[in-house]
C-alpha cells in the first residue's frame, strides 16, 4: 500500500517543486516504487523530468475517471520513479471537480488503483486554497510544507494547521534558508520552539537548487554531496521517520 505525500503551500515560489522532485528521487533511490503527480498546470516538475506536459483527454476526463491514471504514467530517467505529467488543462481542475459527486474525494479515487503499485505517491500541488487542495488534503497521508523563514511564516503555518485539522499530518520544513541572515535564524528558532511538527532539516538557498531548472536534473546529480543534496537526504530521513510514527492509508 502507498503513502501519499503532498508538497503544499498556499504561497508560490517557496520550493514545493524542488522538494517534490528531490524527495521522490530519494525515495526511488532507496528502493521504493515511487510516483510523482504534477498537479500544477505550470508543469515545473514535468519540465524538470524532460517529459511532455500532456495527458491524453486532459484533467477533466482523468478526475471523472474516464481515463485511467495508470495509462498516462511515464517513466523518468531514474529507476523506480514514475511521473503522472502535468497538463495545461489542470488550470480548470476546480471546475472539473465541482461537477462531480463528493468532489473532495475525487483525487483519492483517481489514485486508489495505483496504491498497490507504488510505495510512495507524491503530489506536487499548485499554490492555492481551492477544491483541488481540499481534494489533496483528503487523499494525502501527510502534507510536506516548505516554509521560508520570514515574517508571517508562523501565521502561514498556524492557518494551515487549522485548515487541515483532523486531516493529514502536517510536516513543515524550512526552505530557501539563508543562514547568514539573522532574520532567518531568529524566525527558525522561534518556529521550532513553538511547533513540534516542524522538521529539523532545512533546505538552503543554494546554487544547485536554482540550477535544477537549467540542468533539468535533481540536486543529487548536479552537486552530489553538496549542501542542498545533504539537506534533502536529511529531510527525507526525517519525513520517513515521522510517517512511521503516524498512520498508513
Amino acid at each position, binding site marked *: 500500500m502507498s503513502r501519499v505525500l503532498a508538497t503544499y503551500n498556499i504561497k508560490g515560489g517557496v520550493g514545493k517543486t524542488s522538494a517534490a522532485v528531490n524527495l521522490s528521487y530519494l525515495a526511488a533511490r532507496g*528502493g521504493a*516504487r515511487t510516483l510523482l503527480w504534477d498537479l500544477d498546470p505550470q508543469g515545473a516538475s514535468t519540465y524538470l*523530468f*524532460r*517529459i*511532455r506536459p500532456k495527458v491524453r483527454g486532459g484533467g477533466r476526463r482523468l478526475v471523472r475517471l474516464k481515463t485511467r491514471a495508470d495509462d*498516462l*504514467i*511515464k*517513466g523518468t*530517467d531514474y*529507476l*523506480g520513479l*514514475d511521473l503522472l505529467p502535468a497538463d495545461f488543462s489542470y488550470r480548470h481542475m476546480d471546475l472539473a471537480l465541482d461537477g462531480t459527486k463528493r468532489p473532495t474525494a475525487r483525487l483519492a479515487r483517481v489514485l486508489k488503483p495505483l496504491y498497490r503499485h507504488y*510505495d510512495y505517491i507524491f503530489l506536487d500541488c499548485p499554490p492555492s486554497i481551492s477544491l483541488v487542495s481540499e481534494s489533496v488534503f483528503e487523499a494525502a497521508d501527510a502534507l510536506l510544507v516548505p516554509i521560508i523563514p520570514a515574517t508571517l511564516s508562523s501565521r502561514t503555518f498556524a492557518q494551515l494547521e487549522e485548515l487541515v485539522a483532523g486531516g493529514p499530518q502536517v510536516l513543515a520544513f524550512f526552505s530557501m534558508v539563508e543562514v547568514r541572515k539573522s532574520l532567518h535564524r531568529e524566525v527558525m528558532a522561534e518556529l521550532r520552539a513553538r511547533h513540534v511538527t516542524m522538521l529539523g532539516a532545512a533546505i538552503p538557498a543554494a546554487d544547485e537548487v536554482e540550477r535544477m531548472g537549467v540542468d*533539468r536534473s535533481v540536486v543529487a546529480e548536479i552537486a552530489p554531496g553538496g549542501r542542498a543534496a545533504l539537506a534533502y537526504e536529511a529531510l527525507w530521513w526525517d519525513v520517513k521517520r515521522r510517517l512511521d510514527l503516524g498512520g498508513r492509508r
Partner: protein
Amino acid sequence: MASHAHDYLLPARVTLEEAGELLSEHLDLRQGAVSSAERRFYDTFDGLLRAAGLAAAYERGRLSVTDSSSGELRAAAELAEPPERLLAYELPHGPLRGVLEPVVELRALLPLVHLATDVRELGVVDAADKIVVRIVLERPAVIIASGRRIGLAARARLGPVRGYEDELLDVRGTLEAGLGLVEAERTVLDEAVLAAGEQLGGVSSKIDLRLRADQRADAAAAAVLGRLLEVIEANLPGTIADVDSEFLHDFRVAVRRSRAVQRELKGVFPPAQLASHRGELRWLQQVTGPSRDLDVYVLDFDAFRLTVPERFQADLDPLLSVLRGRRLAARRAMVRELRSDRAREAISGWGSFIERLESLPEEGRVDAARPIGELAGERIVKVYRRMLRMGRAIDASSPPEAYHELRKKGKELRYLLELLAAPVFPGEVVKPMVRSLKSLQDVLGRHQDREVQVATLRSLAGEVSALPAGAVALMAMGVLVDWLLQDERAARDEFAAVFTEFASPEQRSLVKDTFR
C-alpha cells in the same frame, strides 16, 4: 520467448566500450556509469522462485526480489551479510517476507550462483534528452567455489521506460535489423546456473513418470522405485544438515511411497529378498518419525497458541521450549542413524536390488510379467473394497485405532493412484477419485494428529511442570488439550459425510468400470 525478449547477445570478444560505441553509431545515447557488481543469487532446493518467475539476489547489503522477465523490483530489504540460508517465515514482517513467504513457504533460500558482472549503463534519449529506453551492457562471470571465474556471453539488456513503448520497439528493430543482434534464449541467471554445472529449476521431489498400461509390472515398479530412490538420496544431505523441514518430509514421503509399492506389488519381487529390504525401509521410516512429528509440532505452534484464549497464549512458552529441546534431541538421534553404515547399506542395497529386478529369475515373481495396467487396477479395486469394509465398520464407539488403520490403507490407495494409475488410466477418473480420497484422508489425518498430539502433551507434562512458570503452562496446556479433544470429536462427526461420498454407488461403479 516473451519473458527474455529484451536481452540481446553481444558479439564474442567485443568489449563493453566497443559495444557502447557500436550502439552509438545507430542510436542517440547518453553514456552512463561503468561499474562492476557482485550478486549472489538464491533459490530453494526445488527452485520455487524460478518456477514463480522470480529471482532473489544479494548485492551490497541488500536482498532484492525481482520479476525475472521484466526485471521489475518486487521487494527488498537490508541485510548486513549474504545469508548462508534464509527462511522467509523467520524474516520480520514487511514487503520482502510478503513476496517470499507465499512462494517458498517452509523452504529455505539457499545460495544458487555467485555472479560478478561488469556493467555499462546507457540511455537512448529523445529530442529533449529524456531517456526513453534503458540499455545495460553487461559482461557476467560465474564465480565457482574454487574462486575461478567462468565468463558468460556479454549482453545488451533493454529496459523499458514506462510510457515509451513505441521507442522500445524502434530500438529493438535497430538492434535486430541494423546490428544483426540476436535475442538470448535464456536469462543470465539460467546461463550462470548451467555454467556452474547445476540443474535448472532445482531438484524436484515430484515423481512424474511415463508408464504404459501394457508395460511389464516389474519394469514399471523398477522405474517408479528408481525415481523414488533418487528423491530419497537427493533429500538425505539436507535432512542431515537440517536445512529446512521439507527435506525430511520429502525423504519420508518417498520412503513411505516405496514401501507402498513393495507391499502392493509384492508379486513382482523375489519374496525372500523383498522381506529384508522391506525391513530396512521400515527401519528408515521409524528412525525419522519422532523428528518429523516434533518438526510439525514446532512449526504449527503458533496455530496451536491461537486455539487458547489470548490471555493464556504467552503461558505456553515453557511448552515450546520443551518441544524445541525434544526436537533437537530427536534430530541428534536421527542424524546418528542416518549417518550409520546400516542406513548407507539400506539405501545402496535397495538401489542395486531394483536395478537388477527385471533381470532376476521369474521363479516366485508371479506378477512380474503381467501388464502394469492390469495389476495396478486389480490392486486399486482390492484396496478400495478393503477400505469400504473398514469404513463401514466404524461407528461412534470405534477406538481411534480403527480410524488410524483406515487412514493407513487410504495412503496406500493414494500412492497406487498417483504413482501407478495416473500415468495409465484416464485422468477424468483418477483425479476426482484422488480428490474424494483426499477429503477423507484430511478428516482421518486430523483425527489421528489430535490423538497423537494429546498423547504427546500428556507425556510432556512432567517436564514442563518442572520449569519456572511450569504450573501456569500446565493450565494453558489443559485448555489446549481440551481444544484438541474437541477437534478430534469434530473430525469424527465429519467422518460419516466424507466417507459416504467416498463410498457412494457412483464412486463404486466408477472404480469397477475403470480398474477391472
